[in-house]
């Protein structure tokens, strides 16, 4: 199993990052990386353990401090009709556990969606409004997952970078925006997107399968969510409703266990799309990192 993450910012290494589209004068790129071996996070790596290629050109990464690219977890919860009853209780419990597990210096926010997308709690260090809002959530209505994800990707979350954790248990049936709009927003965003999918089949083994392949029976919506997660450096966490709490804690653990690599791009000074490759040298490991970034023309 692998997990998270990547990012790059077209700015100096210190100070609040965050314009969602990278400027043309890219001075530094930051990529956050989650490394696992047989599902267990790998810690203690140094910059020399990583190999980073930007559009196929080797770069010289260094390890950046967590403060350089602070994360703002944004919970994006599907509260459509299929969540009525015990399923909503499981989701609430998972949300509470996630909020309780946040570090004291991590702000967090909450969006809910059914047919309507609602910003319930703007980023805050205060846990009380998050808990209270989770307790007040009701289930009902259709599912506009794409609209919700677009809003989360494009909303300005303040200093730091959004770590979007989207929960859904169904197909999208009412979004106004389409898959193209969402995927473009993901490519141009600095956000990291993890998707917790109740009822989904277990993730395929990345060592033996192509992540671009659709899973049997996978809906177009889930395929898109998988693509968005992969593009931004996140992943899809399949689980049962009863397993939601555990899944959310695993997502949180992955957010806390990431490496942040920084480099000044060498030999790739061009606007537009840049493909990224990150590997761990000389040892078996699965690496989850953003697969591309975008420099504005």
């Amino acid at each position: 199993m692998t997990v998270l993450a990547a990012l790059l910012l077209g700015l100096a290494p210190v100070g609040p990052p965050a314009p969602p589209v990278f400027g043309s004068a890219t001075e530094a790129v930051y990529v956050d990386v989650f490394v696992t071996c047989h599902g267990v996070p790998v810690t203690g790596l140094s910059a020399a353990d990583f190999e980073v290629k930007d559009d196929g050109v080797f770069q010289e990464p260094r390890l950046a401090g967590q403060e350089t690219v602070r994360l703002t977890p944004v919970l994006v919860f599907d509260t459509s009709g299929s969540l009525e009853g015990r399923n909503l209780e499981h989701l609430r419990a998972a949300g509470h556990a996630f909020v309780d597990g946040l570090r004291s210096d991590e702000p967090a926010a909450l969006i809910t969606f059914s047919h309507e997308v609602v910003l319930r709690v703007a980023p805050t260090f205060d846990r009380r409004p998050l808990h209270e809002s989770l307790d007040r959530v009701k289930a009902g209505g259709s599912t506009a997952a794409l609209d919700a994800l677009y809003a989360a990707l494009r909303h300005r979350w303040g200093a730091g970078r959004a770590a979007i954790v989207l929960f859904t248990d169904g197909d999208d049936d009412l979004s106004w925006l389409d898959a193209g709009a969402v995927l473009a927003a993901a490519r141009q965003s600095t956000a990291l997107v993890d998707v917790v999918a109740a009822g989904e089949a277990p993730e395929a083994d990345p060592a033996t399968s192509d992540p671009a392949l659709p899973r049997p029976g996978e809906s177009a919506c889930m395929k898109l969510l998988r693509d968005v997660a992969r593009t931004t450096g996140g992943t899809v966490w399949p689980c049962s409703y009863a397993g939601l709490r555990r899944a959310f804690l695993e997502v949180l653990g992955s957010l806390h266990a990431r490496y942040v690599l920084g480099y000044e791009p060498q030999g790739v000074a061009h606007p537009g799309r840049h493909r990224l490759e990150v590997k761990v040298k000389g040892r078996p490991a699965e690496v989850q990192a953003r697969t591309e970034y975008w420099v504005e023309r």
Partner: protein
Amino acid sequence: MGLSSLYAVCLVGAVAAETPLSLADLLERYRGGGREEVVSEVAAWPRERVWKHVERVQGRVQGKQDLGGPLTLVVMLHTDAALLDRARRRAFGSDLQMEAARAFVRLVPADPVGASFARRWYLGVASYEQGLWDAGRARSLLEEARRRFPQDAELLVALGSVDEMEGSLPPPSPPPPAVARPGGILVRSYDASARDRREELMKAEESYRQALALEPGLGEARLRHARVLARLGEGAESLAELGRVLEGPVDERARYLAHLFAGHVLEEGGRPEEAVAAYRRAVEAAPRCQAGRLALAHALDGLRSQEGAALVLLQAITPDDAEGGRRDPWWTYPFGQADRVGSILDGLRREAGQ
């Protein structure tokens, strides 16, 4: 002449002998204060009892014998039992009670009063099914209604909206190129799904066109016709049709949706400035609607107007609880007239109970 005098017949003999309650008693309780209780009882009847009951009522009506209450009341009793059954089983219940109601509505006479009742029953119940995404049941009801009322433009629009709903479902995932062997099963399956959706949209377009031929002033038909034309790739025709919608007398809903749909056509057609203008008009028409603001934010993003996009997006997702929540016509548009189901069925219950 009232419905009760039109359809009233008594069943006391046959059903009372078989069951503790006569149909007359059931209808009296249904019409009186015990509606919920009697609906619940009827919903629990076993299959055999329901069909014996259907046969007996059919026999009585054909023999012009008294039922002990209006036939329309029998229709609504079983309709409510069906709705209760569906609600309890989360929409996957059997068709038993609905089929019984449907069998009875076929017996309702074709005079003006009866026809009006039957027509609204088909429309209301089909819209209910459509609201549950059950296109098969909705289509079946509407096709039956169309056979009975072939010149009814509103039924045509309802039928078209079911086809439009199916044709507008998210497309299936295309098979990845690495495994998509030309002519292989993955490619053929994907092509068939895409073709099916287009065929549904073409059927919807045909229904709306027929409805407009019958009733050129039917704004809902024109609005939906425009939307379907856009989905079929006929952007210019769609814009022209939307222009005609806006030239006529339009309410807030139609004005909002017409501008929203026009913005989408313009955006898809590579005319982003005009799309932004259309979305702005949609937001002006219905300032509290969400889809219009999301569309505008996305279009502004495309124009690199990031400050404006951020502000509009924030407005789109900020709750407006003080005024009791949003009501965006886009949220109900895919479901045809499902938002009218409550008022249609309430009207039928009142009418049947008179």
